[in-house]
């Protein structure tokens, strides 16, 4: 079965590489990392975090109250880093394959 990581999961884990983040910081970081192509909705984000926590890819790392608002921080776990590395390797391999095929095609046209 295809275990390809979904785009929101990929970007959430990537956003957590730079350190623990609270909900809104994650949303803005994901938008930045995806060049604004992905705007996470709050319901989607917390659904994803709940699932990732159950899978052991992220964990809670404390909370604070700022201006009367609750902020809960999450951080990526070692398993999360490994999963992201595996996905990154899969994407790299795909990119190398397509680059090789494109090169082959250009050579083919040139001859």
């Amino acid at each position, binding site marked *: 079965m295809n275990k390809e990581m979904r785009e929101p999961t990929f970007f959430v884990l990537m956003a957590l590489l730079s350190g623990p983040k609270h909900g*809104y910081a994650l949303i803005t970081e994901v938008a930045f990392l995806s060049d604004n192509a992905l705007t996470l909705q*709050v*319901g*989607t984000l*917390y*659904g994803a975090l709940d699932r990732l926590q159950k899978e052991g890819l992220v964990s809670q790392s404390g*909370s604070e109250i700022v201006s009367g608002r609750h902020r809960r921080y999450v951080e990526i776990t070692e398993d999360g880093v490994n999963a992201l590395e595996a996905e990154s390797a899969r994407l790299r391999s795909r990119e190398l394959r397509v680059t090789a095929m494109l090169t082959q095609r250009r050579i083919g046209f040139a001859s």
Partner: protein
Amino acid sequence: MNALESRYRRALRCYPATWRLNNEEAMLGTLLDAAEGQDRATPRQLELANLAIHGMGSRIGHVPFTIPAAVRDRASTAALAIGAAIALTAAMQLEVPPDNPSQTIWAEYQTFGPFASPAIIIYSVWIIALFSGMAGFPTAARSFTLATVPLSFAIRVVADSQNMGLRPTWNFLGLLVLLAVLVAAGKPGSTRSSSRWLVGWFLPALLLFAVPQILRPSWFSYQEPLWLARPELISWSPLIAVLLAAVLRLAGRSAWAVVALLIGLPFTAAALMGGVGISFETAQLSLGLTIAALGPVVLLPIFGIRLRLERVSHQ
């Protein structure tokens, strides 16, 4: 508590109590942070819809989210192709006028221009959704099929109010709605060779749903396809789904076996809702349902797929 916070708290009531206990304050903080970041004093409709969808998803035990994404994507692809095949055959069999409409039941009712009823719009949207999926636009395909859900209700209500007696039955519309929900639960065509799978499903399904009319040209039905109108045909659906799932499982295609069970659900519901009065059909439907009921208990744990129907604990 200001008005914005009250609106968000109301929206978060879609989530079950256990979820709210653990996540409400953090989610509320994020929602308020986002509103402040975007300089908004009111929630966005998309935001509220998103909370409602995820909240209801949590309430029904995360069923759509615990079935692996790859399985849901395949079920979505299959449901899109099957729904489009049903829509196309229904458009041809139910909506196109007979040779002499004035001498048939068509003369007794209002029609929708050259078509029997406004349901032609729903069928057209399904076909557009199929082409969107095949062209590599899964989000558009999902949106189009989801649009058929409110459209089905609206069209039926309008048709009833306009004496368009040739409109589809609630049972048929319900079947299409359930297939649309299956399409929306995944990403149609996101597996490899999506077009191949869509065509691979669509053409056989088209043939399958056209067969009753080809074999029995004397049979006719005005408000739902023949295979749905005839209890002796539709009542086989749960049994076929479970047997197909068992064969696929034995062939080592566990994901496809789950897809067969999922696709069988709307047809089983249609068989039940259609009312099966004859004893033989009742017996075959009961047999199929019994096996279908055992399916999730026996087959799913074997597949290693958890189908959690109990309320999820967020500890």
